[in-house]
């Protein structure tokens, strides 16, 4: 809860500083679009940290680093999940309210109903529903069967891929942000691939005869 407050506080503080330095924006008819894009990018960054932290939690190499401690990491994972959901709701609400965006409420919640880049927006909508499923089953862990919540939780990396494609194809500034997508995508891929290879190596070294 404290970490969630910290993440949200830093986000809002940065938002306030940026907003106060661009006062003319508040009277700009593009404000919902700018807000939607800003929160979309912020949600993507918190999602990257969330997925990377989740993968790292079970990475065999985690034992070689003392910082962050597993306790901190697992609590950061939860705080980042909550922050991602809040930012995602802001992202979707802003774009649904924007009269010029060509998305609208139906385009936001019904796949392929947006006038603006329907397939790209639909990928974001599908990713949102998948995230609701992952977050909902994680919150209910302990109340629902472990064979239900954990396999669902394991598809989060695939949802991240969906979000990357959504950001690249739907973002009007995708070209300007290309290095962010490359860096964050590479981070998640490296963490995931090294986890698989390290686990494979560990499992097979145990099978060698003494």
């Amino acid at each position, binding site marked *: 809860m404290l970490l969630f407050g910290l993440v949200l506080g830093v986000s809002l503080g940065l938002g306030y500083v940026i907003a106060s330095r661009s006062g003319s924006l508040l009277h700009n008819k593009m404000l919902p679009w700018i807000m939607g894009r800003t929160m979309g990018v912020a949600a993507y960054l918190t999602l990257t940290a969330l997925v990377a932290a989740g993968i790292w939690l079970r990475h065999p190499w985690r034992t070689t680093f003392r910082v962050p401690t*597993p*306790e901190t990491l697992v609590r950061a994972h939860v705080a980042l999940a909550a922050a991602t959901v809040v930012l995602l709701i802001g992202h979707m609400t802003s774009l649904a309210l924007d009269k010029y965006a060509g998305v609208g409420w139906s385009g936001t919640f019904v796949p392929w109903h947006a006038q603006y880049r329907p397939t790209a927006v639909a990928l974001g909508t599908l990713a949102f529903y998948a995230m609701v499923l992952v977050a909902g089953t994680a919150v209910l862990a*302990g*109340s629902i069967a472990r064979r239900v919540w954990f396999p669902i939780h394991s598809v989060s990396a695939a949802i991240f891929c969906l979000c990357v494609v959504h950001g690249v194809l739907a973002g009007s500034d995708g070209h300007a942000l290309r290095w962010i997508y490359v860096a964050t995508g590479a981070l998640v891929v490296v963490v995931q691939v090294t986890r698989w290879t390290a686990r494979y190596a560990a499992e097979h070294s145990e099978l060698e005869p003494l």
Partner: protein
Amino acid sequence: MTVEIRIDPTRCRGHAICALMYSEGVELDRWGYGRVVDGTPEGRRSIKRALRAAAACPNGAVVVEDSADRRIRLAGRGPDGG
């Protein structure tokens, strides 16, 4: 009712869900594996949290037993937590 919580180290894979759900009784060691610090939860809420932690563990490493060493689960749970 007296119950005891323990973690089977051969099953624990360090998902850390137990430390989130039953933080007053389980902590993580420096490698991220669960370690019981208060093995006898007292009070209805605490016991329920321990049972939820046991039900949520993806590897079934968290075990809650009564005073006769019988494994207990949340109402309606099968052997695999389902």
